[in-house]
């Protein structure tokens, strides 16, 4: 959609009927002006149509979903040094569909005062890790990743410790923030 240059009209003049020189010059100016104006109008039309359509196409792709607090359970139920598995589920909006998202998290406390909530997704390639009570470690079934009770990498390929999820304690209950991705 670009504005044409004046040569068009000169060319147009070549093929047009032979007018008087005066007349022809006047025509060239008028046509050049009309040409510019046509280009401008076309650009306006294209922009007016394209801008909303581009935004429409982008849609909600980059829109963050609202985070929500989910109650895991009472803190006194969690034995110090022994991660406790919770399955959280919450309604999620998948485009125009409403779905339920489920996820496993581990709540860990070393001393009954401080708590952390670990995602069960291995930081290597996303397999679900599990707590092995015998060896007191998180084990990844896929590529042998091993994490400590605090989520630190002990062995294997995982590049980062387990993801700690935002949490809070209210009224003796442990809450975790979910769905804010």
């Amino acid at each position, binding site marked *: 959609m670009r504005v044409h240059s004046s040569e068009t009209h000169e060319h*147009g003049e070549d093929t*047009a*009927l032979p007018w008087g020189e005066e007349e022809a010059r006047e025509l060239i100016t008028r046509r050049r002006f009309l040409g510019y104006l046509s280009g401008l109008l*076309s650009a306006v039309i294209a922009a007016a149509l394209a801008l909303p359509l581009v935004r*429409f196409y982008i849609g909600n792709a980059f829109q963050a979903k609202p985070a929500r607090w989910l109650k895991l359970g009472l803190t006194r139920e969690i034995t110090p040094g022994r991660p406790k598995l919770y399955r959280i589920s919450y309604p999620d*909006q998948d485009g125009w569909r*409403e779905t339920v998202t489920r996820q496993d998290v581990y709540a860990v406390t070393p001393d009954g005062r401080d708590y952390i909530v670990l995602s069960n997704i291995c930081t290597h390639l996303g397999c679900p890790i599990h707590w092995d009570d015998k060896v007191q470690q998180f084990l990844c079934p896929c590529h042998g990743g091993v994490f400590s009770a605090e989520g630190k990498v002990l062995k294997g390929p995982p590049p980062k410790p387990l993801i700690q999820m935002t949490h809070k304690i209210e009224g003796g209950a442990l809450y975790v923030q979910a769905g804010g991705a």
Partner: protein
Amino acid sequence: MAEKRPLGPESDGPEQGRDAPAPDLFRRVLRWVDEQTELITLTREFMEEPLFKGVGWPHVFGSAALFLFISQVCTGILLAVYYVPSPDGAWQSVSYINWQVPFGSLVRGLHHWGASAMLIIVFMHMLQVFFWGAYKRPRQILWVVGVFLLLVTLGLSFTGYLLPWDQKAYWATVVGTRIAGTVPLVGYYITTLVRGEANIGALTLTRFFGLHVMIFPALLAGLIIFHVSQVRRKGITAPWRRVGDEEAVPRTGLFYPDQVFKDAVVSLLALGGLFAMALLRPAPLETIANPTSTGYTPRPEWYFLPNFELLKHFPASWGQWGEFAGAIVIPAVAVLALLVLPYIDHNPERVPQRRPLVTTAAIVSLVVLLYLGAAGARSGPRPVTLSLKEEKGEKVFLDLRCQSCHSINGGGGMEGADLALGGPRSPDLVIEKLRDPTYNNPRSVMPAVPSSVNDTDFSNLVAYVSVIDSRFHMPNEATEIAPQKPASHYEGNWFANHKYEVRKDPSICGQCHQPTFCQSCHRNRLPDSHLNDWLKAHAGASRDRPEYCLVCHDQSFCNTCHGKLQHDSTWMHRHQQVAKTDRKDCLQCHQEDYCTTCHRGATPVTHREKGWLHHHDGKAADCSACHTASFCSTCHEGARPLSHANRDWVHSHQTAKTTECAVCHSENFCSNCHHGAKPKSHDATWVTRHGGVAKAGMQKCETCHTSSFCLGCHGGVQMPHPGDWTLSHKDKASFAAGSACYRCHDYGKFCSQCHGETPPQPASK
């Protein structure tokens, strides 16, 4: 159409390049591209069409139609990015487009109004071509292709109409496809073929989707390419010249920029119009299609109105043949006439006045078409005009979200009655129902109009609800409110199943609703869990999952019972006071007569005192600790009659007329004291025993009897016998046979206890 063409580069084409003193890199690239593709040269050749003198503003409709087609393609492709052609997802995805996607409503509006605009512009284009006589030799095929373009455009409109899968779409398609069924013999097969199955459903939707986004657009694009290339080859007709005279007309114009400028102006105006319509009148989306709804009145879209009206002008006796003639034969004949027109009209004149036959026929057809369209638009249900009061009432109706449960000819919730049925109503009944929805149905879950609605608004609402009848439709604003509900709330079984959803995770409901929201319906209906033995179980349930309670109740709810009313270990000592001050709280759980389960036998010490029944009136101030005010009326129903105020009443009441007692007292009232006809003590042996009782003290006897009562039996003998009776009895009593002594004493036996074998003969008086 020109605005989509790359105009600029043509000037930098190879031919022009020779004049350029120093072609820069950009021009060199363009020249290379043109050498490879010839695109620039072709475009330039296309744009440099010389135009006959007189071609101008009347000739813009073709380009405008093409612009609208391009606009429809752009918006359509992007709508397809989100749209799902399935009955489960179609409406939901369109609703998502409308309310969730940025500019969704605008893009849908552009596409919706673009369809109508395209039909109008295509029709205007045809009229222009007709009246300018441009369909004549050598351009007959342009006209024929144009007619097919019109038909495909109509096909696009018809198939696109169903896609949102709302009530309007569904029912319009039901009617539209049924028309094909009027064809004799094969009608059923055509309808079924169009629908893809016997009824409109998933297969109809996918079929229409395929036609709308693939087959028809491809067909249209192909026809347009042919149509435009033919226009370019045969040129735009020289206005008002006879067939064959065109070459004499000078070609003074150039398609670019002379005509392109006009096209661009008209296209911009068209786009502006579409934007205005899309923003001011967004594309409607009614409630999701409901094949079972019986109240919905389908209306054809405006471009089918002439045909719709035509059907009514066939006599009913023609039956299906009438419909066949109106819906199929006449339109088919009209299309056929249009197709053959350029081949049967051999008149070389292009000026309308010089070809009166076809011009008259066209004008008559146009007038008939417009008349039928206008009549069709008018002939629907009588238009509803609301008074100012009713209009305000309609707003209150929406403010109170009545449409969440009630529909009006569809378009609302399905829980309540469809108000279009059974109207208009008596305002008195409406008032009664709105004030107390349970008045005619105790299990009604409809909430009463809240007290926050003032009297004016209430009377406006009553006025509006009263007049609603079958002509009414749900106000347009209603759908704008409704789709903000999550999709789950639109599932057909949501109303029945929401209790299970609440139980799964009540906190989800709490994200939007206040705890008291449930009460707006459940005031008259407890949750099922609360029905049996709930009071016993609720302590454990509330300890386990307090969030469940919080769905309906707020935190302070527990305190209504568990504050001072907590039935703990001190309760037995406190309950008397609580029962006195907050009796209504007790009544939340207990029945009115619950106290008597304990207090019937366990009377307080005071009540066990002798003569309590007779003296209790003096201590009335203390009674309210246990008794309600109404307790007195158990005995003292009404005021005491004057007769009873007499101190001697207890003694004398036995002589009263029993009919008079019955005025206040029930039959068994006497047994309060008498336990039958006489006191219990007065049994068969009483006559022999009563002396001893009387001797111990006469107070008890005197409750009922006067001292003279004894004389009734004992004649002149003083009773009980005074202390000196042993000495004086020979003087004071008569011992003659049949005397009063022998009622109690056996003459021979009793006297001989003192007097030996021969008692003295009684002294003669």
